[in-house]
């Protein structure tokens, strides 16, 4: 069979370049499909960021949990039990120590030996070098001694302070309500400072409380070494605990100022207004000017449902500690919240048709200005300036810390914008005013927290998740719809400690 002949050439040439116009419906449907695709793309983006935010939160919380677990458990559980035993004071405190009226109580503490027991029950006795065999002077008001256990032990053993026991100490020691400070055993940066309060019981076991962090490390390091087991374990004198606390409070706990930026999701929670279920019924528009869903001879309006979309904010904040744990936070915040909706109406009051979703409560509204279109997707955005105030509580305050807070905010409505996602129709902007269906001022409840990292003495970086719910509807009483939004934001905050 021959491949190609006059028959084929004739068919080929007769269809070469011929044209026929498809119906207009084809392009309308393509356009609608493209608008839906774009809206889905946007929705997917929001969903992606939402999942990203959730995943980031979970990862951060896990990291904090692991960090916290390691931090606390390393101070309370013994992997290889270390016991400092037989800490014997050869020369007791001043005999008059119970009266203790003398601020310069004389103490001669000669450490005879420190025994170190490992889990293998191998016991080794190490005689320490007594730093000073002579009487040592410790001010009676500064009853503190630190036993330093070097971070070098970290690689071999995790030392748990609650299991650090002081046994067989002399009566002199039991009589004296003394505090020993244990500097932690994690690493040099994360070590914790522990107090060891002598139990007056005959068992003479020591209770250990975590009293604060090791920002004092440098101070401790600067004090005199009383006794030394080896280069890794030694005993020091602490100058003045009160001074240490004052120093800390003054340094880290006063005021801060900062800026933050956040993003998240926003749900307008739109419902029907006080005019009953008008929003979602199929009534005749002309029969009631407050309704907009239904059919007239000229237009058919679809139900205007809204779905959650993205939100973002910027804020300038400040805070002040009112106690060691509690603080008050406030600031100024700009926020933009968005939801998505679809509409089949445009408003033709200006030269270019504008996106239209629902009627505002203006009396001079004209339904004649509405025109039916193919269904299009639009972004419904609200802009607010907020003045939040909240009370915070510091759950954990270390290099990495956790803060929880709750409060209220006053939101000032700026404007509402309806933006056609396809770009075919002009955006409709509703500003604050008498014809606006939105209240000019709203109140919100806030619930949030911070996971922060102090990377230097003055600078703190924080991730602050926050949930907000409007305490009342954001629409006016005479508006024909109701909205009581909620939002969840994940922010990044930069703080400067004043």
């Amino acid at each position, binding site marked *: *069979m021959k491949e190609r002949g006059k028959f084929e050439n004739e068919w080929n040439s007769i269809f070469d370049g011929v044209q026929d116009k498809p119906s207009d419906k084809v*392009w309308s449907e393509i356009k609608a499909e493209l608008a839906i695709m774009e809206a889905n793309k946007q929705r997917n983006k929001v969903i992606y960021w939402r999942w990203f935010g959730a995943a980031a939160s979970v990862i951060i919380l896990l990291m904090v949990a692991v960090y916290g677990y390691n931090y606390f458990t390393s101070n309370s559980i013994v992997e290889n039990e270390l016991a400092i035993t037989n800490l014997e004071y050869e020369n007791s405190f001043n005999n008059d120590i119970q009266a203790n009226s003398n601020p310069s109580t004389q103490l001669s503490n000669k450490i005879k030996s420190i025994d170190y027991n490992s889990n293998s029950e191998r016991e080794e006795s190490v005689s320490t070098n007594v730093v000073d065999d002579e009487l040592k002077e410790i001010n009676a008001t500064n009853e503190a001694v630190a036993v330093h256990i070097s971070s070098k032990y970290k690689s071999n053993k995790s030392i748990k302070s609650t299991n650090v026991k002081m046994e067989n100490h002399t009566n002199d020691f039991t009589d004296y309500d003394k505090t020993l400070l244990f500097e932690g055993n994690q690493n040099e940066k994360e070590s914790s400072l522990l107090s060891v309060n002598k139990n007056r019981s005959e068992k003479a076991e020591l209770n250990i409380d975590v009293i604060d962090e090791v920002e004092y490390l440098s101070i401790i390091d600067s004090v005199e070494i009383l006794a030394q087991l080896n280069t890794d374990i030694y005993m020091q004198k602490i100058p003045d605990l009160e001074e240490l606390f004052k120093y800390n409070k003054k340094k880290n706990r006063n005021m801060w100022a900062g800026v933050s930026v956040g993003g998240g999701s926003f749900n307008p929670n739109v419902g029907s207004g006080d005019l009953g279920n008008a929003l979602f019924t199929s009534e005749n528009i002309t029969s009631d000017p407050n309704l907009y869903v239904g059919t007239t001879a000229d237009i058919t309006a679809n139900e205007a449902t809204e779905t959650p979309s993205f939100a973002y904010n910027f804020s300038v904040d400040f805070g002040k500690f009112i106690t060691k744990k509690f603080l008050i936070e406030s600031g100024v915040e700009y926020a933009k919240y968005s939801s998505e909706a679809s509409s089949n109406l445009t408003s033709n009051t200006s030269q270019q048709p504008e996106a239209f979703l629902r009627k505002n409560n203006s009396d001079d509204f004209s339904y004649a200005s509405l025109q039916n279109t193919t269904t299009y997707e639009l972004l419904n955005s609200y802009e607010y300036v907020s003045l939040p105030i909240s009370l915070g509580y510091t759950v954990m305050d270390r290099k990495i810390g956790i803060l929880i807070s709750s409060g209220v905010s006053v939101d000032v409505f700026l404007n509402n914008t309806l933006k056609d996602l396809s770009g075919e129709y002009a955006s409709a902007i509703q500003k604050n005013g008498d014809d606006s269906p939105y209240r000019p001022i709203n109140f919100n409840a806030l619930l949030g927290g911070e996971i922060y990292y102090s990377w230097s003495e003055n600078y703190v970086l924080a991730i602050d998740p926050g949930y907000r719910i409007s305490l009342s509807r954001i629409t006016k009483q005479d508006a024909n719809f109701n909205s009581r939004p909620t939002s969840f934001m994940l922010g990044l905050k930069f703080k400067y400690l004043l």
Partner: protein
Amino acid sequence: MDIEKQLVEQCKNGDRNAQEKIYALFSRSMYVVCQRYSKSQLEAEDIMQESFIKVFKNIEQYRGDSTLGAWVKRIVINTALNSQRSKLYMFPMTDVKELENENDGDFSLSRFHLKELLAMIQSLPEGCQVVFNLFAIEGYSHKEIAEKLHISEGTSKSQYSRAKSLLRKMIEHEEKLSYERAR
């Protein structure tokens, strides 16, 4: 060509006006292609709609190696073939006896209206219709058609022979009718 490139770039940014311009540029010629591969106007419009959505969805992949028109046409034909594939699966193409070569002689289609020719093509059985379009009008070889439709080269040839025979009969019938009407 520069305008086409510009439109493509705008389309990549989701510009609806540019998309509409591209549609206006190619919709008329592509609609004829869609009709050749379909059985009805409704089906042709469905193929058309699906094809242009694919065009705009995949516009990022257009590198400018061929003309935009050729690229769009390729998408339209592939969409049409996909739409026909389900039917071809239901009515698999089997070898039909290859007909004797007929002399094309003074064969001419000039006296027929486009709509009449489209109706003839649309009345062919599915397999014949697809192979006829690909071979006679698009200019593919039977080997290429066999690869495209996952059939044997022989099947392609025999289906084409059948299409050709059926079309000849239709043309003769139409000519006879018009001759009788003229008498």
